[in-house]
């Protein structure tokens, strides 16, 4: 039994670390705040809260695996949603049937996703054709999208959504399954399929591991980079759409703290921006852990929110150290090998 556990944890370092973390978190909060933790309200909350940035994290995961990074996704999502919300606000009129309203909503969602795709194409081209480092290119685009958003909204929040749309954020499917979580689940399953069973997924890990080698193996790296950013930014825009429904409005700077949170989750899950590695199941475990920490800290009356950041940061360091020390081919060692 013990040897089996040992074998599993050696093969799946991040998975076992995250599972251990999850068990510890649940144990800790059960002991200290059992009554509050194990209530339906808390878990409904947790499963309603993480999908909006959880979806974004999955999007950015594709970028990371390909060896890129995206800093622009929140700003782009906000810009797209501003147009989407304005479209909905303008086209939903009093006395419309639910069917018609759903029609308008679908068009708005489509608008948002198309803008997301355009943003992805721009990111991809800047990086693969013009060879601008991904961090620089996407930070520049982040500024561009934020600027445009502020310009068209004068920095104000845009609201006026149909209640049918704002209900999404706290609707229960079958009475217990939060709708945002359902969306998250769908995207999760599709993404897992893409990574595991398609040639796209295979190529993605290849260009992430060594883009030069991939190029010489007749992989269209420009096409792959653009496609990856499109995928990333479209998924991130879906995350933004969920955020819009919980906040019943959108604004140029909503969710700016999610950029760092998504990156933190990915690194915690062993998806490093170095590229070529990472498993989506670990990403899921990391998302849940991060949300449990956040909600858990909020259960303690006088515990500063900074403790959540503190714990997140501490965990990140521990995970990075462990992955380096234990496998001997962790983050830093791997890098050295690559460059030699």
């Amino acid at each position, binding site marked *: 039994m013990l040897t089996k556990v*040992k074998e599993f*944890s*050696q093969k799946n*370092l991040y998975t*076992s670390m995250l599972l*251990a*973390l999850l068990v*510890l978190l649940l144990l*800790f909060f059960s002991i*200290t705040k059992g*009554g*509050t933790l194990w*209530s339906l*309200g*808390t878990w*409904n*909350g947790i499963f*309603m*809260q993480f999908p909006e940035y959880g979806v974004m994290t999955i999007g950015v995961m594709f970028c990371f695996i390909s060896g890129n990074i995206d800093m622009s996704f929140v700003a782009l999502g906000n810009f797209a949603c501003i147009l989407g919300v304005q479209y909905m606000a303008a086209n939903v009129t009093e006395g419309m049937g639910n069917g018609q309203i759903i029609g308008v909503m679908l068009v708005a969602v489509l608008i948002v996703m198309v803008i997301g795709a355009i943003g992805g194409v721009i990111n991809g081209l800047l990086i693969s054709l013009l060879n601008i480092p991904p961090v620089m290119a996407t930070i520049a685009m982040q500024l561009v999208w934020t600027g445009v958003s502020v310009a068209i909204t004068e920095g104000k*929040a845009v*609201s006026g959504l149909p209640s049918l749309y*704002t209900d999404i*954020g*706290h609707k229960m499917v079958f009475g217990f399954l939060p709708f945002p979580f359902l969306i998250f689940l769908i995207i999760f399953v599709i993404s897992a399929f893409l990574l595991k069973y398609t040639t796209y997924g295979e190529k993605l890990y290849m260009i992430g591991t060594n883009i030069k080698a991939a190029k010489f193996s007749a992989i269209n790296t420009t096409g792959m980079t653009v496609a990856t950013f499109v995928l990333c930014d479209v998924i991130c825009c879906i995350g933004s759409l969920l*955020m819009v*429904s*919980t*906040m*019943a*409005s959108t*604004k140029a*700077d*909503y*969710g*700016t*703290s*999610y950029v760092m949170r998504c990156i933190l989750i990915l690194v915690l899950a062993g998806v490093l921006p170095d590229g070529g590695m990472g498993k989506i199941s670990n990403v899921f475990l990391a998302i849940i852990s991060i949300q449990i920490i*956040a*909600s*858990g800290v*909020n*259960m*303690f*009356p*006088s*515990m*500063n*929110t*900074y*403790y*959540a*950041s*503190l*714990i997140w940061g*501490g*965990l990140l360091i*521990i995970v990075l150290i*462990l992955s380096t*020390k*234990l496998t001997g081919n962790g983050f830093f060692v791997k890098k050295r090998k690559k460059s030699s």
Partner: protein
Amino acid sequence: MKKMLALLLTAAMTVGLVACGSKPAEQPAQSEPATTEGTDGAEAPADIEAPAEPKGDTPTIAFVPKVEGQAWWEHVRGGVTEWAADNGMEVIYKGPAEVDAAAQVQIMTDLVNQGVDILCFSPNDPAACEAICKTALDKGIIVIATEASGMENITFDVEAFDEAGLGAFLMDQLAAQMGEEGEYITMVGSFTMESQNNWADGAVARQEEAYPNMKLVDDKRVEDDSDAQKAYELTKQLREKYPNLKGILGTGSFDAPGAARAIQEMGLTGEMFAISVAMPLEVKDYLADGTLGSVALWDPAVSAKVMLNAGMELYNGGTIETGTDLKEEGYTSVRVDGKVIIGDGQIAITMDNVDDFGF
């Protein structure tokens, strides 16, 4: 084996980290005896649900600031802590670590789901909070906002002052410094800032009513783009244009600091005066050397206490209407307009209290 050890180590460190944070939180929770004024069962309103954990008649109260760790909000935390100690109650004070509406809504969602009875908050963006506040109201939670007078899904919004009242207050201060006579002009951060223009209107109205020897030299306002440097340049230009100009009635928080620098440089301290709303520590030097007599502000910690008092009043089955006493200076007889509770909370910042705030 090494790996198992390491995993255990991680575990220990995590628990250690979390435990460190939680200890101070736990102690007051257990040692604080729960006695409040309104414990008669008869007074408890029927439509409010019992707290998640049975705690008798002590409500679970949460206060969500815009952000944690900034001087303004640390000052508010001090007020909230003081209120909790005075009332023998516990208040969950929790805001986002960054100024982000989304992060703030997440915290409010946690609190609402974990079951609070009174939720006080200061929204980063009122529109973003409507949905979660509606959920809160549906659950029977008392929702008290501040600086969010346009919000729908709240029980009440607390405002420290009304716009005309603050304008009149600014004028009273300036008039006292000017000896109730002489020429003055009004300055705003921007023509499009509705509130600041309303304050200026209130100030001019007050002057017309109470200070006949004062004269507004130009109906047109000057605009400093919320920039102290521009306020400084404008003050110099204005004094050239109107050699008898004696007072600058500013509104935004850049007006008085900028004007004061100009007054000091021109050597007109004691002859020319300026006022506006301003952050105490930013104008401390000018207050110290007498360039500025006072600036106006409201105490956000007092507003916070008033919000908590209002929440308790409603929790205990009371009502809030014009004339209600919310037990803080400036709020002993509030005005209620729809869902907005308006106090008389503006205060003058002088050398006596400039250090009381930490900002």
